[in-house]
């Protein structure tokens, strides 16, 4: 029983973090209709920004994550204007092609710029845990989870309560009509791509607070991110968060009954089975 509670607690914490790194991917798909295979590489860049902020500015990675967001937001918006914009109307296979190319370029640029070694931060809370009854709650997971909740809440406020947020949602649903009411959709695409990649970078900063970064860190998360957003429904922001928690739970609970080695097999099996019954994901709308 305690083992189940412990697994639930761990799954919830890590799932919240998965939600944040994946929500940007969902946003990019929802607004631009692009399946971005390079999304996890932007997350990796965010991890590096947070690491440098920790090393040279003494910022905790959870705070440095804000810098990750800003830096990668700018990079993402630039990449959208220079590259993605050119293939917005191209067939989906071309978009896959471009983002895979981008993945290769970003990973190897990081290798050239930062070298191949692993980097990690040291914080006081990394080795602490709270005891809630018989349950261990890792302080670093808890702070990451809280950061994830705050970020999600902030994103929700931006999307529903601000002009730019409304314009992003309007563009996602009907770019033509949005244009008619004064939305410069090309600009919105750049902002949305920047926002999406920036959020993954911010998630990267959060993940760095307990993990490590190297140029190939992205590959660790890419399939996981897709699982999260597809489970939740591509393009749905709430869906990504729900999907994150579900993935965290599946990974964590599955280890109670089967070898840890097979935790992702459990995840993918449930993933494919769920798609068979609900092809648009849990919270996705059938239209897209």
């Amino acid at each position, binding site marked *: 029983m305690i083992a189940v509670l412990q697994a639930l607690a*761990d799954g919830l914490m890590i799932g919240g973090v998965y939600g944040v790194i994946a929500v940007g991917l969902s946003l990019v798909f929802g607004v631009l209709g692009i399946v971005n295979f390079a999304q996890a590489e932007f997350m990796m860049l965010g991890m590096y920004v947070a690491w440098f902020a920790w090393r040279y500015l003494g910022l905790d990675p959870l705070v440095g994550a804000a810098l990750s967001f800003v830096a990668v937001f700018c990079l993402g918006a630039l990449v959208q204007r220079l590259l993605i914009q050119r293939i917005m109307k191209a067939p989906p296979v071309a978009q896959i092609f471009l983002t895979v190319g981008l993945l290769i370029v970003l990973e190897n640029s990081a290798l050239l710029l930062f070298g191949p070694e*692993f980097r990690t931060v040291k914080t006081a809370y990394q080795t602490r845990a709270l005891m809630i009854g018989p349950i261990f709650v890792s302080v670093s997971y808890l702070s990451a989870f809280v950061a994830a909740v705050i970020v999600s809440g902030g994103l929700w406020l931006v999307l529903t309560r601000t002009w730019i947020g409304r314009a992003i949602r309007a563009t996602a649903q009907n770019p033509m009509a949005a244009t008619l009411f004064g939305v410069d959709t090309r600009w919105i695409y750049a902002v949305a791509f920047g926002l999406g990649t920036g959020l993954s970078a911010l998630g990267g900063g959060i993940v760095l607070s*307990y993990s490590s970064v190297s140029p190939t860190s992205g590959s660790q998360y890419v399939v996981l991110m897709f699982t999260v957003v597809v489970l939740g429904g591509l393009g749905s922001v709430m869906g990504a968060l729900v999907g994150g928690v579900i993935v*965290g739970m599946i990974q964590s609970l599955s280890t109670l009954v089967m070898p*840890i*080695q097979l935790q992702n097999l459990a995840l993918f099996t449930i993933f494919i089975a769920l798609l068979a019954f609900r092809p648009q994901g849990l919270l996705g709308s059938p239209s897209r």
Partner: protein
Amino acid sequence: MAALATLAASNAWSAEPVKIGILVPLSGPTAQFGNNIRNGVELALEDMKETGGLKALGADVELVYADVPAPNAAAAATQRLISQDGVVGIIGSFVSSITLAASEVTERAGVPMMTHSFADQITSRGYKFIFQVANKASLFGEKQLTYALDIAKRAGSPVSKIAILYEDTAYGTAQAKGLRDTANRLGIQIVVDESYPLNLTDASPLVNKLRASGADLVFPVSYFNDAILIIRTMRQQNLDIPTVGGAAGYIIPDFKKGLGDLVEGVYSIAPANYDALPAIAEKYKKKYGAFMPHEALMYGAAFQHMVKAIEVAQSRDPEKIRDAIAALRKCDGFSAGLPGGCTAFDANGLTSVAFPVFVQWRGDDIVTVYPPEVAKAPAYWRGKEVK
């Protein structure tokens, strides 16, 4: 490389340089190790130059790199080194699967290849042209357990229950198998025997199992990323069972950089340690800013062994060089840094001298603590010095 090229140009009187291929991952997930190997080999080359290059052939040695991030690229790159660049021998690679794929090509082409990859099957295929300077992974697993048991016994806290956590890669499974077989043979109870996917995103399930098991000793076999997640999560849950890492992630400078004081006292099995070779280790540290990791030492030794063999053979014929490698017993330079003090091979091409050693973290360094004949300092068990 540029320096080398100018060096070659200035020696215009000398013959065409002898080329040796360095087949390592310089990009991709294991790039760091490829990079360390490059450092080690270049230092080994410098070291040999000081004692006067390839006298017999009147030529220089030139290194030709091939970046092999994944095994799929190994065969073509190996073939290119052999038939395009004309290398007489190949050093590499770190990753067992790359070595296995590459050695299929070297064997058919009749070009010697030297490696320190651990996989058991490297030298059990009956191949003539592959040489393994380190022991097999299964032996590492075995020694990991017997060394630890002996130290624990001498420290007066015998071990009856052990936990094995290992990544599900060639290296992890082979080493775990060695551990498991030995434990079964010695009647030690294995309370956790769990493999996990490489590059964990969360170590809690592993550590939860470990905590529930009541193990006296834990053997995590993992690369860096998983190593720090496991150690940190153990500390969060106040688990301070003696920890014996399985080489790789546990004996690189980054391990200390990432975990700080948490590493103090952590054990690991290792194929070699730099403290056996203080002068060269000092040079390495000065040049690259961190202690010399074992792969730099091992590949440096392999490289020097190959160069020496070329000199002995007095030939550029790969077949003759192969025979010279097999016959040579080299005990100076980098080779002296290997446990056993030499590089030499048995009929299968497996090292006939080396044995695994036990190292322990002390401050910023790792110190060889076992077996006694190579130990540089006494071991500590649960904070107490073991006499």
